């Protein structure tokens, strides 16, 4: 008998093992739901899978009676727009500030303490300030996301720039490159894949800030909907929404990983 650390599951077994916890959780939910519904068929807390699916389908395909809109898609579009704007702005800031602070000593000395200090501020603590300053419209929500994830991305990009071997920068100079051309041809291309990695890691936080801000002040959005129907303990809406958000987050992550692999074939091999 081999040691436990040397026993590896075969491929198919591995997939099945990965699925197992999901199946167990689902079974546990179904059992609990059935037990509650047997006692009170109108119990809202643990709706049956059928009810959950029906609700989700209704939100996705039937126009709302109040506004005439397809609620799920309106919410999804609103949330993804905010998230996309916030993340895109954070990425742009991460690239510009991160490269400057990491490569140019004067910029680094000037910006680094500020970045470190800002990164320490809990973003949700400044949410009221953002609402007061930027109003309760879209801007405050986008700014909250930027506030929450830009410092992290900036620091990650800066660190990556600092990790570039000095030899490379010297080599570029001996080939006649100016600071600008070093940024353009040496630093930027090597930092973009790392930027995508950092963005992937920051997406979790971005969702958190998005939903927090939508919960407080919004008229549509995934987070808004969840917190709206919470008052009615409408688990039949909340649970499918949570699954939907999880799915969107998962797809975004996969898309970024795929983009990195396709656009930067040298990136994975670099460590080999």
């Amino acid at each position: 008998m081999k040691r436990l650390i040397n026993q590896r599951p075969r491929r198919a077994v591995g997939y099945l093992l990965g699925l197992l916890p999901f199946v167990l959780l689902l079974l546990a939910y179904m059992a609990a739901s059935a037990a509650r519904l047997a006692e009170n068929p109108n119990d809202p807390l643990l709706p049956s899978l059928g009810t959950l699916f029906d609700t989700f389908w209704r939100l996705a395909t039937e126009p709302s009676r109040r506004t005439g809109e397809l609620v799920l898609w309106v919410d999804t579009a609103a949330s993804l727009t905010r998230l996309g704007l916030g993340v895109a702005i954070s990425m742009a800031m991460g690239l510009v500030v991160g490269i400057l602070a990491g490569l140019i000593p004067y910029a680094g000395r000037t910006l680094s303490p500020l970045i470190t200090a800002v990164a320490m501020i809990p973003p949700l603590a400044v949410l009221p300030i953002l609402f007061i300053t930027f109003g309760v419209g879209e801007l405050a929500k986008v700014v909250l996301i930027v506030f929450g994830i830009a410092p992290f991305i900036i620091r990650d990009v800066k660190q990556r720039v600092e990790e570039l071997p000095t030899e490379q920068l010297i080599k570029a100079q001996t080939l006649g490159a100016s600071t600008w051309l070093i940024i353009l041809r040496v630093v930027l291309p090597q930092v973009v894949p790392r930027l995508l990695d950092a963005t992937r890691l920051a997406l979790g936080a971005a969702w958190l800030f998005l939903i927090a801000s939508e919960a407080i002040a919004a008229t549509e959005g995934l987070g808004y909907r969840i917190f709206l129907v919470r008052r009615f303990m409408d688990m039949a809406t909340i649970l499918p929404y949570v699954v939907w958000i999880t799915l969107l987050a998962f797809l975004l992550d996969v898309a970024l990983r795929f983009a990195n692999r396709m656009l930067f074939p040298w990136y994975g091999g670099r460590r080999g």
Partner: protein
Amino acid sequence: MSAVTLKNVWKAYGRDVVLERVNLHVKTGEFVTVVGASGCGKTTFLRMLLGEESPTRGELLMDGRPMPGEPGPDRGVVFQKYSVFPHLNALNNVLVAEEFGRARLTGHLFGAARRAARDKAIAMLEAVGLQQALKKYPHELSGGMQQRLAIAQALMKDPRILLLDEPFGALDPGIRKDMHALILDLWKRRGLTIFMVTHDLKEGFYLGTRLLVFDKVRHDPQAPNAYGANITYDIPVGRTEPELLAEIRDQTGLPLATEEN
């Protein structure tokens, strides 16, 4: 004509003296190899030639003028590793040298200018034996091929001097022999002035036209960093007696890497 001149050069970091009273004249076309125990200042010497460091005292001249305070296209360099750009394939690694110099804003050449630069880059890659690997990324190349690429890159700018910092230290003995042949060939055909720092005493002894040995001549056991190293041997081409080799080995404590085939 002397390509590089050092007049009474000292280099100290705070109270730690690394080099002291270094005097040297190197003529254009010389192939200087530099050996010494670790910490003897040979890397500092190279960094001064690169412009990464400047002398604390004394004069460092290139073609009679003070050495510029930062690296530039008149001095090419090949390091032991990280010399090539991992995100560019072999062709672009060499082509970028041309683009750095001629496309100051976009960093890219287009049209006829690009085709000409491309031809020049391909010719250079052929000169180092990489014509089969134009589209390969550095991580797909062996260690020896990566160093060939780094040499091709450095030669694109026709540098006044070529600095080699233990360029073959990480290579297998057989590959190293090929690289010696390559660098000697390039040196003869292009009339380069080469400084090569090496760990391998034998490499230093047989490869160049001139061998410099860096070592400390003064020692203070109470303060090991109080005195810097100096050039203790300056041996011209042809003097390759085994006794001399053994003497330098005993003095520097460097191993004689045995060359296998």
